[in-house]
């Protein structure tokens, strides 16, 4: 049985690998998802068949309760709330890891790792690491969820000596883990948990709301490493393989986001960046005048264009303008206009955010292009329709070495004959940097809610 279980666990691990491989293309992605689900089913079924597992009723009950809640949430949630949802789910993984560590500590015999009060040293170390990472993930993800959901102010909460305090608490935690290894005391165990919960809060509050996606990915990566650690405790290769997959995935996504923002990971972690948007910054612009347009102007310009590139950003998600946008694109295509979508790697608030929203509005994925693939085409475009995006189009990132976003790769919308900016004000985006493009000759500002404005343009086009 042991060996049979090891083999099916291995099969489950392979299925998880194939699941991620499937995501290399939209065509194969659904098959990949199926692999992932089969793998998970196999893993759970194998565990249920283990001789030491007998309490089927509470297990099935727990799975039914949890599964029901999960299915309900996942079916009901709006696609625009994805970043929050991911943060929320991560917090649950963290809490689950805390509980697993706690259960193992209370009943080590069940896991073959020693007897109560006399747990093997290696297992104690692995367990306390799993506990600490799980607890940090739990509270950290809750803060991230709150900031993304708007329940907590997105402003970085900073105070003097903050990093010193965190470092100090980190050292205390290390000492307590050593103490736990020496004494095996339950009090120390739960003290570690409490400390880690506090540390999770303290580590995330100084980080601005818009940096949360990086944090969510980082915590995802941590939860992977924690799962691998638990795998070492339980002598279970499936947990190790899965942990390594999840850990790499989170780390790579954080890396991609940091690179897309041209910031170092350390810079994100130390926090203090972003937050409430400087809404009145338009006043700072002195007497430079931007051209303000109406929906009718935009409709006329686009109908007479031969090539339009649409650049969606965070504002499109906020306004839920993707459906209206697709409708507008349909009208243009009907008129014979060539319409494409350009996606910046960090547009929106999570990796791939814009792609999902556009897919939701039935935009075919082969009309949607990555930055590198389309950036050269702006020079041949008549119109760049920038909807709710700001930082990712800011030419200061290329020209102004004093700008905080200097060096970040941006979409060359300025190369298009006309740039239409749909946003509610002349305010800045998440980085809080003014966008000089607003005041260029070829630019027309369409001030208003993204959805409302797009609908007005559709009306103007149809009349």
């Amino acid at each position, binding site marked *: 049985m042991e060996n049979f279980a090891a083999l099916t666990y291995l099969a489950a691990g392979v299925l*998880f*690998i194939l699941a*991620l491989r499937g*995501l*290399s293309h*939209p065509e194969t992605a*659904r098959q*990949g998802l199926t692999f*992932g689900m089969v793998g*998970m089913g196999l*893993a*759970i079924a194998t*565990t*249920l068949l*283990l001789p*030491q*597992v007998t309490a089927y009723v*509470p*297990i099935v009950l*727990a799975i039914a309760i*949890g*599964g029901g*809640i999960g*299915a309900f949430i*996942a*079916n009901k*949630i709006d*696609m625009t709330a994805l970043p929050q949802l*991911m943060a929320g*789910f991560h917090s649950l*993984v963290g809490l689950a890891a805390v*509980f697993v560590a706690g*259960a193992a500590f*209370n*009943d080590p015999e*069940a*896991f073959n790792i020693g007897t109560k009060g006399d747990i093997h040293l*290696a297992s104690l170390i692995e367990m306390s690491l799993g506990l600490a990472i799980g607890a940090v993930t739990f509270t950290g993800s809750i803060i991230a969820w709150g900031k993304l959901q708007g329940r907590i102010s997105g402003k970085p909460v900073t105070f003097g000596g903050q990093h010193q305090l965190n470092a100090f608490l980190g050292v205390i935690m290390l000492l307590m883990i050593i103490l736990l290894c020496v004494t095996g005391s339950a009090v120390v165990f739960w003290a570690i948990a409490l400390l880690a919960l506090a540390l999770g809060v303290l580590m995330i509050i100084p980080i601005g709301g818009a940096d949360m996606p990086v944090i969510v990915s980082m915590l995802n990566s941590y*939860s992977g490493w924690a799962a691998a650690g638990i795998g070492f405790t339980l*002598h279970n*290769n*499936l*947990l190790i393989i*899965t942990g*390594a*997959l999840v*850990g*790499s*995935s*989170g780390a*790579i*996504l954080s890396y*991609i986001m940091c690179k897309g923002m041209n910031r170092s990971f350390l810079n994100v972690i130390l926090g203090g960046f972003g937050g409430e948007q400087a809404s009145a910054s338009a006043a700072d612009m002195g007497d430079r005048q931007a051209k303000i347009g109406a929906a009718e102007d935009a409709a006329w310009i686009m109908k007479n264009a031969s090539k339009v590139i649409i650049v969606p950003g965070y504002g499109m998600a906020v306004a839920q303008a993707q459906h209206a946008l697709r409708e507008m694109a349909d009208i243009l295509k009907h008129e014979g206009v060539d319409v494409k979508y350009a996606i910046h790697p960090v547009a929106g608030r999570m990796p791939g955010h814009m*792609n*999902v929203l556009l*897919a939701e509005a*039935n935009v*075919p*994925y082969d*009309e949607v292009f990555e930055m590198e693939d389309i950036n050269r085409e702006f020079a041949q475009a008549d119109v760049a329709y920038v909807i709710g995006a700001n930082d990712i189009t800011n030419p200061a990132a290329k020209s102004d070495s004093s700008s905080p976003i200097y060096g970040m790769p941006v979409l060359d919308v300025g190369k298009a004959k006309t740039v239409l900016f749909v946003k509610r004000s002349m305010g800045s985006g998440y980085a809080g940097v003014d966008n000089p493009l607003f005041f260029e000759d070829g630019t027309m500002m369409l001030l208003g809610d993204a959805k409302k404005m797009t609908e007005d343009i559709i009306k103007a086009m149809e009349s």
Partner: protein
Amino acid sequence: MAEDHRTLTESAADLANRLQDLSERAADLAVQTSDVISQSSAHAQPFIITGLTVFVLACFVGYHVVWRVTPALHSPLMGITNAISSVIVVGAIIALWPASGGFSLMAFLAVVLASVNIFGGFIITRRMLHMFKKKA
């Protein structure tokens, strides 16, 4: 009496002999035991070694597989990894009501939470993926 004496002495000597025999056998057994243990440990490395091997290779696989994921599907990637990271449910199931202890509330809660994630993660990913369509 002398005979008795002899018998007793003899039987004592006998016993002593048997004792020696037995102690030799015990020594033998001990040697064999240590043999078996050392042999089985020579054959089976401690788990930390094989675990490490598996871990290192899995990191290589993870690295290559994740970099191959197309950026357009990074959100579904987060959804799937979220779901599969809840495979720790396996540990919680074992601890829920083991033969050694009674019902463990903590393990129960862990199974509930992990299940939220598994179902939630897979379903939201499926919702996302079902929206990705090619040009008709």
